[in-house]
């Protein structure tokens, strides 16, 4: 790529002496190191670089001396970002002398000075190996949003995107808009005091969608395939038998869910009597105004609701669908309203889960004298005579097994995401046409930090296809996903990364001349960024990329590099660290730390003045998955006594911002440890340590433990070679 800055590098180093740095560290020695750096034109100290006056010193050098590479040795790069915001073409690096040196180690100490000097050398080397891409790779983007599914979620997504000025194509499978809302008799309460059922809010939504000039509605339509990348998707849509090609910038998937198949619930009496129905059937009965026993058409005066019918059951749906409790209470209200004098609704629940404001609805329904609630395990649902059904439950709140004889039994079935049955999107991605899921068929995403983002950048899942939720929540979800879609288009326009490295202008560059088409990068990218050409070489779709560097960590040929994060840059940083001789008795331990959680955690440790061993050298990485094995090999052959990898939790409840980074790091670490054993080096010298951001206070202890383990093994025998 030819976008990198071509100007002759001119380095300016700025060492701050404020915040206690001047008192704790040998500033003179640091200045000497900076002055000796190649391309250095100036090195200045200041007692307060983040003041207006301090910033002016740097800005004057940028303007006057033509400095275009800046290294600021002061506080952590995570603070004062808006203060040290220089023009885009300036290559800026921050050396963390405050949180991770002066505040967390002894002042006026040789070891602390060694640490500061190593960090400064690393920063200078990194800076000299970095550049900034001059302009985005892609220039033109499509501003239209494609919303798939026109239920509560999809309609809201379309309305909000349209209001924000974007064109929207709303694709609906059915002939009419509304989705699940069309099947409802009444809707759960959505406004104060959250106790009264509402008419389904459908007609108003339909009118609003149709009134929006920015929205194009395609009914009886399905998406055949989608190719391309954020900002530049091409979607093939079949509508009423005709195929049309759409050019869209982002996709909102709002195809909802379907109820769990009640025919699989024979153990709860489905099929034993025509008077056992699923909750969607009961809703349809209520909508048609006929709450009757199917067996003889007589009014259903007493109705038993069996909750968690197939839900939270490892043999059926292992998860909670979150809305069935409230839905059953709503349907209990139908029974009571149809017959206020003698109507009886029995509700057998496992745990009454009415999240949020629905608690008020639960409380209100509880007050009804004809609604009978009990926790209980329904053990038998049998026909009792011709028209009655007997429901037996154990472990009830009434103290023992009980039976009630009712006209009708309603099984509250859970939600199955529509993506489980088929992929819907038809993505033309090397990794397959569907959105990757973690479990149960719901699209995988980082559910805490960025729930709408799927593992396909620019494709956002919202509503019950993402997670079970009520219409109220799905409506909010639709709006949120639409905003994320607009944001994805904006990032594509400027060529910057999406979450979690939002606004990062750098991107991976593939040295294809040395690529062996081993396909590791195309397979391991969690986001399906890379397609393959006919010969199996990776093809970069830059806007799909989240810049995590997992491909870089994977590449055995080491041909993938970022402009400011490269194989050579990192190796040089590691080499810049001085290894004390074995006779000094001092160890050197390298700690690769995830920039998202582990690195901020030790900044927090520093802010709280937690003290830890000065024999550790911390290197931030984009993700633990972005650690190339060669760095570990380099550091061990270079004399480091041990290497720590500190990152996020992986597995089912992972916290990795890049989904699979820690998992891949651990997998790769296993291979390195095998190699180490073959070389006669102890595998324990390299360790992965799970380190969530909330564990910052544990850091001194972790370091202590690791140092102790290394002391036990002894110094690296390769030291000095």
């Amino acid at each position: 790529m030819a976008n990198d800055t071509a100007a002759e590098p001119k380095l300016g180093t700025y060492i701050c002496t404020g915040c206690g740095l001047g008192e704790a560290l040998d500033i003179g020695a640091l200045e000497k190191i900076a002055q000796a750096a190649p391309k250095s034109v100036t090195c200045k100290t200041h007692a307060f670089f983040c003041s207006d006056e301090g910033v002016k010193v740097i800005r004057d050098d940028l303007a006057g001396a033509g400095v275009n590479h800046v290294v600021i040795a002061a506080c952590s790069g995570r603070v004062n970002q808006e203060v040290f915001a220089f023009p885009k073409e300036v290559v800026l690096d921050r050396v963390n002398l405050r949180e991770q040196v002066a505040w967390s180690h002894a002042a006026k100490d040789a070891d602390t000075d060694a640490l500061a000097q190593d960090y400064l050398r690393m920063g200078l080397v990194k800076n000299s190996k970095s550049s900034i891409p001059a302009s985005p790779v892609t220039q033109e983007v499509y501003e239209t949003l494609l919303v798939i599914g026109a239920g509560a979620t999809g309609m809201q997504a379309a309305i909000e995107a349209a209001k924000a000025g974007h064109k929207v194509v709303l694709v609906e499978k059915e002939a009419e808009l509304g989705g699940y809302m069309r099947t409802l008799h009444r809707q759960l309460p959505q406004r104060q005091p959250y106790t009264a059922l509402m008419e389904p809010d459908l007609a108003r939504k339909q009118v609003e969608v149709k009134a929006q000039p920015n929205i194009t509605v395609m009914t009886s339509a399905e998406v055949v395939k989608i190719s391309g990348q954020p900002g530049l998707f091409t979607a093939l849509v079949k509508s009423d038998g005709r195929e049309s090609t759409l050019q869209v910038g982002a996709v909102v998937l709002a195809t909802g869910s379907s109820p769990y198949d009640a025919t699989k619930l024979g153990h709860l009496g489905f099929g034993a009597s025509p008077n056992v129905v699923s909750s969607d059937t009961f809703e349809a009965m209520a909508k048609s105004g006929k709450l009757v026993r199917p067996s003889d058409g007589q009014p259903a005066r007493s109705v038993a609701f069996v909750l968690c019918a197939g839900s939270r059951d490892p043999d059926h749906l292992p998860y909670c669908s979150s809305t069935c409790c409230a839905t059953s209470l709503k349907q209990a209200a139908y029974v009571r309203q149809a017959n206020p004098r003698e109507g009886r609704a029995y509700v057998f629940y496992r745990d009454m889960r009415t999240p949020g404001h629905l608690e008020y609805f639960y409380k209100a329904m509880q007050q009804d004298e004809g609604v009978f609630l009990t926790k209980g395990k329904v053990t038998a649902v049998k026909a009792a005579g011709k028209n009655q059904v007997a429901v037996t439950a154990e472990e009830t709140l009434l103290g023992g097994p009980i039976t009630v004889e009712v006209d009708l039994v309603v099984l509250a079935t859970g939600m199955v995401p529509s993506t489980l049955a088929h992929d819907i999107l038809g993505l033309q991605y090397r990794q397959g046409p569907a959105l990757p899921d973690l479990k149960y068929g719901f699209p995988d995403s980082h559910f805490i930090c960025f729930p709408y983002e799927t593992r396909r950048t620019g494709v956002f899942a919202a509503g019950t296809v993402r997670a079970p939720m009520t219409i109220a929540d799905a409506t909010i979800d639709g709006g949120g996903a639409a905003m994320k879609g607009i944001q994805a288009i904006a990032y594509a326009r400027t060529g910057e990364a999406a979450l979690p490295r939002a606004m990062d202008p750098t991107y991976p560059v593939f040295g294809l001349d040395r690529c062996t088409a081993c396909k590791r990068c195309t397979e391991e990218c969690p986001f399906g960024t890379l397609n393959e050409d006919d010969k199996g070489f990776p093809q970069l779709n830059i806007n799909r990329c989240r810049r995590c560097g997992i491909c870089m960590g994977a590449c055995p040929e080491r041909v993938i590099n970022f402009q400011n994060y490269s194989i050579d840059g990192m190796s040089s940083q590691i080499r810049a660290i001085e290894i004390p001789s074995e006779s000094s008795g001092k160890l050197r331990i390298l700690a690769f730390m995830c920039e998202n959680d582990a690195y901020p955690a030790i900044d927090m440790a520093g802010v709280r003045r937690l003290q830890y061993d000065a024999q550790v050298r911390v290197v931030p990485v984009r993700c633990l998955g972005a650690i190339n094995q060669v760095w570990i090999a380099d550091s061990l052959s270079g004399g480091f006594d041990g290497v720590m990898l500190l990152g996020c939790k992986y597995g089912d409840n992972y916290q990795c911002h890049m989904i699979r980074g820690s998992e891949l790091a651990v997998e790769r670490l296993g291979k390195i440890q095998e190699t180490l054993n073959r070389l006669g080096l102890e595998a324990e010298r390299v360790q992965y340590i799970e380190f969530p951001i909330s564990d910052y206070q544990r850091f001194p202890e972790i370091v202590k433990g690791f140092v102790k383990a290394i002391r036990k093994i002894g110094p690296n025998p390769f030291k000095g070679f």
Partner: protein
Amino acid sequence: MPTTVAPDLDFIRSLKQLGGENLKSCYQCATCSVVCPISTDDRPFPRPEMIYAQWGMKEKLVSDPLVWVCHNCRDCSSYCPRGAKPGELLAAVRDYTITHFAWPSSFARLFNSARFLPLLFAIPVVLLLAVLAVEGHLHIPEGQIIYSKLFPIHTLEYIYIPVAFFGFIAGLMGMRRYWTAISAQRAGARPRRGLVEAAILTGKEILSHTQFKKCSVEGKRYYGHLPMLYGFLGAFGTTTLVTIYYYSGRFTPLPLYDPTKILGNVSAVLLLYGCGRLVARRFEKEPEERNNLPSSYFDWLFLGLLTAVAVTGTLTELTRLSGAAGIAYPIYFIHLSLIFMLLGYMPYSKFAHLFYRSAAMVHEKMYAPEAVVVALPGPPVAPPVVVEEVEEVEEEKVAAPAGAAAKAPATSPLGGGSKIGGGAPPSMFGGSKIGGGAPPSSPFGGGSKIGGAPPTSPLGGGSKIGGAPPTSPLGGGSKIGGSPPPPAGGSKIGGTPPPAPGGSKIGGTPPPAARPMFGGVPPKPPAPPVAPPAEESKEE
């Protein structure tokens, strides 16, 4: 065999009308059973009664003696996190029970609504006026005020002995029906002690008000009810003595120094004082956090009647002494009418509690496993105070042994220092009160009131006296004792480590056996190891 439940919706509506209007709010957390000073770990209540009421299980509730074991101290209603007011519900069930078993049944309906009050009052008035008309006394008598000038003593006897007799017999009829119903619930069970012994114990308990005294939130009622009881007994005794005097030739009015007169006057003072306190208490402005718990018409009928009898009786004497015949005779007439109502309507008003409560108490003493009830040391339980900072309680748990009691939150979701204990919702009967938390395998589960919860309790399981294990992740502060808790299960007062996890006050009481909820024979609790717990508890 599962029991078939068919809820009685009208029963639920009746209970709501009788003061249990919040009964449906209960979500079965069992706080009520844990805070109740009378409820025991073997037979915790009123948690089960709440769901019977919610499910309209009429037969179950009207024949439940625990409903009458309750003295309506309202601890449960005050601490209930949902405002379900279990105490009010039990009172409503009691009112319903009186009407339900009353004989003759149709007559009992006249006492449930203020609509019929004029009719009830008219009956004695018309009757007495008729008597006066027949005897030719339909005017204010001349000369010194002597009430027998209006109604000669023997005339009164012709009226009042049958009335009292009717009231008493009808009350006994209702009591018999009730006894049959509660006995049916325990069909086949072997009594632990005989009827006479149980009756004597019950009599002692009534006269000493030992159970009543345990009420903390409504502790003042004890000071009203006790003088009222003795005042009533004294007045009843005075009447009896006056009758004996009459037949031995000594006629009223008696001089003020006569022992019977003194008894009568002292009784009147006691009755006035007791009634006054109870009436005044009902008008007290309730503290905000206690909700307002208004009294129903049915509640008022009896207390109102008794108070009116006491007031008119006293006025009868005072007006006689003052010599105002124009006022004295009409007041005496009203007084007589009210006494007619009090005695004649006894089985249908709240007065009938004398039959039902006594029957329930005797039955309990015969059949129920001995209640191991521990009088709580230390300051009386303060009304719930909203705790602003849970952390504060955590600190106090360590620092202030007794002071922490006042801070006990009623509804704190984290349970720190709570009286609520870790009553696990799925448990069958809510919290254990005395044992150090039921062993994990026990179906009763739940929080401990006095001992510490098992260390595995996820929500702390606050202990009331002993300390909770320090490992409890969400607090579970000790309420009174603050001493370092034993490893599992606190002991009652000191901190003597119990022999096994879940130690109880007495040590080694086996975990309670399951109580069948629908009739049947309650399984006998396993024999106590050495000394029966009951004996020791009495010595406390």
